């Protein structure tokens, strides 16, 4: 149960357009919250759907927003791509108040998308979806040879690891030297 509209985080989101879930639903009206990602597209999500996200659920509980305040202040997730946030919101809506199935086959098959989804879901602390995503990611290397796994996961070789480590040490050394020089300059 969500609606999406183009706009900025300060823009007032549209009213929900969808009907209540069931006729037997309780009389108490459901409260809605608003989130947006990097693309600033605001998504209206019910509190029930957002319960999947421990992060947002915690934010709601701590902030004690009224619906009006929530409308005026959508939760900004600037580090999540719009399409990924859309996926997350859709998943939360689909599984609102339902027991989660043992498998989810609707996850993206494309490596990069899945990778971004994993990061977003991890950040938003949606445990069940993270479990599905991790399983799907893990299965990407099922039956693959070591070299294929290396390619899929971009696993560096020992030589590459050593070079990266040397580089990091060098950089750290330079930074430390710079800090010392700055401190000496300050002292003068």
């Amino acid at each position, binding site marked *: 149960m969500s609606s999406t509209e183009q706009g900025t985080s300060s823009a007032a989101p549209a009213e929900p357009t969808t009907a209540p879930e069931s006729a037997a639903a309780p009389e108490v009206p459901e409260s809605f919250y608003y989130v947006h990602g990097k693309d600033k597209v605001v998504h209206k999500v019910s509190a029930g759907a957002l319960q999947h996200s421990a992060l947002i659920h915690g934010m709601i509980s701590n902030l004690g927003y009224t619906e009006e305040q929530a409308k005026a202040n959508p939760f900004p997730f600037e580090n999540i791509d719009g399409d990924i946030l859309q996926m997350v919101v859709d998943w939360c809506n689909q599984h609102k108040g339902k027991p989660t199935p043992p498998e989810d086959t609707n996850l993206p098959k494309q490596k990069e998308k899945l*990778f971004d989804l994993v990061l977003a879901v991890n950040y938003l602390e949606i445990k069940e979806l993270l479990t599905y995503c991790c399983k799907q990611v893990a299965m990407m*290397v099922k039956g693959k040879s070591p070299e294929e796994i290396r390619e899929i996961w971009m696993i560096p070789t020992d030589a590459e*690891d050593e070079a990266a480590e040397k580089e990091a040490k060098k950089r750290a050394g330079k930074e430390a030297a710079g800090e010392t020089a700055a401190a000496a300059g300050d002292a003068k």
Partner: protein
Amino acid sequence: MTSTPLNRTGISLFNLPYLVQNEIYANWDLMEIFHFSTLSKRTKSISKSIRKEPFLMHLSPFFKKYQIELCTGRKDENEKERIWRLHFVPFTGCERLYKGNFYYPVFLKNSCENFVFLVEHLKDVFEVKFGTLELCIGVEIDDVKMKPYVEWMNDFNWESGKVPALSVIARDEPSLKFLLKNLKRDVDQMKIDTYIRKENPASKSGGNPKCSTPVNFKVDVLTGNGEEWWATETMKSMDAIRMDFYQSDLSNLDMNQFLRSWKEGASNERLKEIKLPLRERVKWRTMLEGLDADLRDFRTARKIFRFAKDNQLYQLHGGFDITRADGRIATIGHELYNLIFENQPMEQYKIEECTRISRVWNLEQGDEEEEIEDVIVLEEADGHVADWRKYQRKQGRRHIFMIVW
């Protein structure tokens, strides 16, 4: 949140948060962890930390279908044990046949070097216990091929200091001889089965098939077929605690030589049990000559005991006692005639044979142990049963047991 690399062209596993990585690893099966662990030092280190179930590892370096077998001992919902059989690719030319649920390719050339690498690597990454090391040696496994494997067996850091279980299936004498001559690591349980064809040219040129020289390793439990390779010197030098053969080429004189050595305390101090057939009918006076053997009265059940490998309780009737220099007593007798299951009566044919043994043993002139014809008196007229019993009793006169108390 971990930032996504801008110029990323693939998923970098190590860019994912630590807990996410762990959740991914938790979904992996043995093969994914194994392949991943071979990629770099870092992946190996990660693989070691992934929680995994323990495995029993069986090794069969010369087997064509697979070289390493990993068993969990745990059964799935279909009551089938989960097993991973790893085979080198390219190797057998049978890859297409051995692909699927139980057979997993390891993309390495089949060589001793890679085999050793694999064993060490699996031991390092997984929690493994060694099961059986099986060596199927035929003419194709010559000294050159076998040497590095034997060297590895000698040098490998076995958990208990000895090879836990070594099963040798020998189809070629020189290969078996090579193994026996060069193995220097003690073995807990050793089973040797031989299927050596006499018309094999290698066998002909080999002359005496037996390993008549002492070996350089000790065995705790020795089983199998000793017909093609076993001689008194091997028997002494292996210093087994238990020997159980279904075939041997030992004669009464060979046994006499062995028993003398045991009695003097010169060899086989650890010996507890022997069960084997001689190549000929037992002649007690020949076998026990010079050993001061004491024939016990079979009419009284002297002892109730059990062999180490089964739970069956036996009554011992009669048999010959031999006393070692240090006072330790052993009893030697026929498995068929001197042993009876607990709580069972001694059958007539056993009484007759024990009586005969006693009579012959007490004769002044002692060479009347000629073959006797069993007269089987049976109510039923079934000739097959009578023939079988005759055969069984005849064989029983070749089979001996020895228990050191």
